[in-house]
């Protein structure tokens, strides 16, 4: 199939079926290069399943997936590494408990046989505003926010085009959330990244993503701009309901 050249991510009629139920039933969307697309929905709506298929972590899917003009196969593919990386929700579970920050960051480089490891690590730590003193610490010696910075650094060290963000701030305190969201915005600009972000928090998604897709029951019920979402110009009842539930101080 042919796609416009400027689409970094193409998802077309993606279907994922687990043992006894359809987790994703025909989801399609596109994200332009340098753009950011947010997916919101309740737990079980299939939003994380879409992300894991794109990440190559879920191999049982039907449909068409494309990143940077390259169709994705179902098996793990070596070139995916340079294209797509992911930041996980729980900063306590996404770092190996027995590996230092240095080890976590050098592992992808060693696997890919990239040289210049020392310089790359120093630069990426600087990019995510971690002090050089954190380099040889173990995860348990870091705060939640610092861990999430390490996870972001690990994702970026292979210089991917697309960053998948799975609820990257929902386990963090709001003051730390603000720092991480600012960092993600800065990195997007500096590295020309394309983001796909999943969250249950509409305000967080709308803050980072100009376009938002709403998922419910494995389907994408609406794709709208962040402005429309803010202004309440919603089409589907599910979106209206989600928006009404997001509590804010008047």
């Amino acid at each position, binding site marked *: 199939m042919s796609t416009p050249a400027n689409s970094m991510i193409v998802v077309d009629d993606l279907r994922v079926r687990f043992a006894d139920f359809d987790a994703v039933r025909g989801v399609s969307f596109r994200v332009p290069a340098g753009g950011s697309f947010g997916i919101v929905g309740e737990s079980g709506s299939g939003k994380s399943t879409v992300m894991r298929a794109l990440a190559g972590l879920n191999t049982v899917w039907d449909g068409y997936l494309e990143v940077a003009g390259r169709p994705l196969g179902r098996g793990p593919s070596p070139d995916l590494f340079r294209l797509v990386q992911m930041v996980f929700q729980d900063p306590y*579970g996404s770092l190996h408990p027995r590996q230092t920050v240095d080890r976590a960051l050098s592992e992808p480089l060693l696997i890919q046989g990239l040289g210049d490891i020392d310089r790359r690590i120093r630069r990426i730590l600087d990019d995510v505003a971690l002090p050089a003193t954190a380099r040889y610490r173990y995860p348990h010696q870091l705060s939640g926010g610092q861990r999430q910075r390490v996870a972001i650094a690990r994702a970026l060290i292979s210089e991917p085009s697309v960053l998948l963000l799975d609820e990257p701030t929902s386990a963090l305190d709001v003051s730390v959330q603000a720092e991480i969201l600012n960092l993600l915005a800065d990195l997007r600009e500096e590295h020309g990244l394309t983001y796909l972000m999943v969250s249950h928090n509409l305000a967080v998604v709308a803050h980072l993503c100009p376009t938002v897709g709403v998922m419910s029951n494995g389907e994408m019920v609406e794709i709208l701009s962040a402005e429309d979402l803010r202004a309440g110009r919603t089409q589907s009842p599910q979106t209206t309901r989600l928006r009404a539930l997001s509590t804010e101080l008047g």
Partner: protein
Amino acid sequence: MTARLFDRAWLLSDSPQSRTQAAWGRRYRLWRDFRANRPALIGFVTVMALLLCAIFAPLLATHDPVAQNLGQRLQPPSAAHWLGTDELGRDVYSRLLYGARITLGMVLAVVALVAPVGLAIGCIAGYYRGIADVVLMRVTDVFLAFPRLILALAFVAAIKPGMTSAVIAIALTTWPPYARLARAETLTIRDADYIAAVRMAGASPGRIILRHIMPLCLGSLIVRVTLDMSSIIIFAASLGFLGMGAQAPSPEWGTMIATARRFLLDQWWVPLIPGIAILVASLAFNMMGDGLRDALDPKQG
């Protein structure tokens, strides 16, 4: 760097400057937790003492362990024979020291055979799931289904009694629990986000298992091994006692009890002394294992 290993501030630094410093800092913290546990420390010291006894047996022994002196049969402990003599007039103290070599050697050989095999089988079954899991775990179940001693006896009887066959027999019956343990650990680790992250970095399954999963299974495996050491010692001694392990005249502790059991009523110290040796060694390993379990508690990170 050796000097720095004694520098507590360097070891406990919150921001280590190098890989080495971070690794040694972690080891030092482990050791500190372990050391604070008194029974564990006693167990550790005892095990070390036993190992030293085994290594330096020729220096520490007062007699030749196999030299017979029928004129000096079944002597009670005395200045000449610190722990008395056995039914052939051999010095029990010296035999005990050389016996430590055999017993501990057998235990270490069993562990060296069993731990890597169990770990590899468990991790592979747990990581791949599916067919590999079913096949490997059914094989494990088959070995678990046999009574251990019967299986070992049958194996030794079929080959030929001796230390090598005893070690292989014990190994054959000891690995299944390790495989099960490693598989259970792997199942909880394989779906962790940090494993997903290395998969996304393009790591091969072999690399993921070897470098990321196995190191995490190792902690509980080491604990299990030290706790099992006592039962391996007793198992080795049982085989020796039944004449299927180390053969006379070699001074294996179980064999010593077996040959001296006739004198239990009149010269009770002859079988009792190797019995105490077995008890002390198993207790020491058990106490050390308990301490290791507390120190390696995953909550400590």
